[in-house]
């Protein structure tokens, strides 16, 4: 598998939606499921995708279509029931900015912690420290605990860290709309730079304009299956048609 290559093969995954899982240790160890209650939701149904290194792919679809599940399967956070999900090289996953920040840590300490969560070593992070701080535009606030940050500052720092992590694949879920308009533009620009460097981008978003600007290829998911896979313009047309939001 080449760095930057992504392969999903007949990926299927169902989620148990009972509020009370009520499983016993015995059932778990024997791998038996309990009967009764609402049936599991099939989030992914035999999804197959092959993405070449350096491609930019937008995943769109209605709520519950399996977009985030696809991303989490690719990131290796949620295992599949059957089929395979593989990403080549270093994968950076952006599902939520600032997840795992220590609220009592200042900005700099959180850069270390968050970088470490993404598998970076101290040397790798230190090397990028100044660039991250500059990108975040936090100025002197970098030295105060993040619990004092506004929500905008919080996500700006989160994005700044993620944007500087060495990666072959970036998986992004709806976290590009960060901060004010100027910062959002900067984020998009940064992503474009990373793509120029050859990073493979998979972006989940409901923002049609953003997907069109950022991605060459679009995958439309519906009910956990691939409904369309092709060039962005056609893909978005298909998506609008499906959603009944075609504008003449």
């Amino acid at each position: 598998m080449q760095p930057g290559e992504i392969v999903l093969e007949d990926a299927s995954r169902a989620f148990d939606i009972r509020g009370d899982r009520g499983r016993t240790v015995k059932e778990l160890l024997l791998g038996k499921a309990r009967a009764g209650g609402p049936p599991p939701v099939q989030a992914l149904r035999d999804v197959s995708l092959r993405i070449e290194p350096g491609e930019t792919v937008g995943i769109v679809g209605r709520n519950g279509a399996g977009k985030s599940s696809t991303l989490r399967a690719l990131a290796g956070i949620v295992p599949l029931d059957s089929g395979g999900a593989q990403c080549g090289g270093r994968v950076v996953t952006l599902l939520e900015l600032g997840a795992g920040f220590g609220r009592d840590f200042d900005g700099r300490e959180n850069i270390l912690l968050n970088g470490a969560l993404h598998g970076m070593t101290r040397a790798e992070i230190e090397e990028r420290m100044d660039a991250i701080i500059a990108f975040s535009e936090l100025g002197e606030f970098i030295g105060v605990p993040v619990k004092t940050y506004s929500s905008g500052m919080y996500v700006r720092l989160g994005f700044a860290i993620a944007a500087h992590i060495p990666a072959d694949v970036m998986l992004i879920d709806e976290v590009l709309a960060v901060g004010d308009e100027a910062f959002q533009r900067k984020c998009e620009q940064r992503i474009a730079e990373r793509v120029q460097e050859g990073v493979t981008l998979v972006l989940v978003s409901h923002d049609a304009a953003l997907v069109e600007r950022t991605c060459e290829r679009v995958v439309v998911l519906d009910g956990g299956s691939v409904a369309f896979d092709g060039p962005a313009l056609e893909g978005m047309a298909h998506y609008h048609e499906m959603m009944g939001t075609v504008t003449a």
Partner: protein
Amino acid sequence: MRYRFLFEQMVRRELRRKYQGSALGVAWYVVNPLVLMGAYYLMFGVVFKVAEHEDYPLFLMVGLVVWIFFSQSLLSAAPALLDQGSLIRKARFPRETIPAAVVAVQAVTFASVLAVVAVITFALRGVGASVVLAPLLLAALFAFVLGLSLLVSVLHAYFRDVAPILAAILLPWFFISPIFFTPGDITGNAAARAALEWLNPAAPFITSIRDVIWGGVWPSAPTVLYVIAAGALALAGGAALFRRMEAELAVVV
């Protein structure tokens, strides 16, 4: 080893999260067990004299620090994965760093309190040659505690009853452990004594560590073999179960 730095950072965050903004800060980790020891000394050393031992406060303290490390690690490891649920759902990293960081924080406290107790004990009672066994016994204890902590943390993520059950078990467990007595102090019955010594997996750890620090004598060979085996078994078993159950953590927490 790529995640060694993450582990370091998690330990730092854990320490900071607990004691940021308090006047004594990390010192609370040491003050709490010391206060607890004072209370137990009053109860078992002065009020109810269960056992007669030389330098009884020190006798008691060695056992107590071991017990506090054991019980506090398990109690704080149990809810640790749930507490970090948002992180587990959003990022991919080795999940065992979470309970391991919790245990490491407890181990740091344990080591500092034990060092204080040991220095005082050595000053008053002298050092025996058997102290060379201390690193081995402590390593076995750490493996034992880490293994059980991995076990309870992953079990609690699936079955929320684990933490309360654990808390309920630890209380009587404390009283049957040879912390403020030796089994020989409270029963003359050989079978009952053997049961107190061997059926309670915490007992050989307490006894052997007390032997080398307070007693200045060599622990019995079976006791040393027992702690090594218990440490290895707990760690292997805990790690195996963790590995088996960790895949679905992002779904259940």
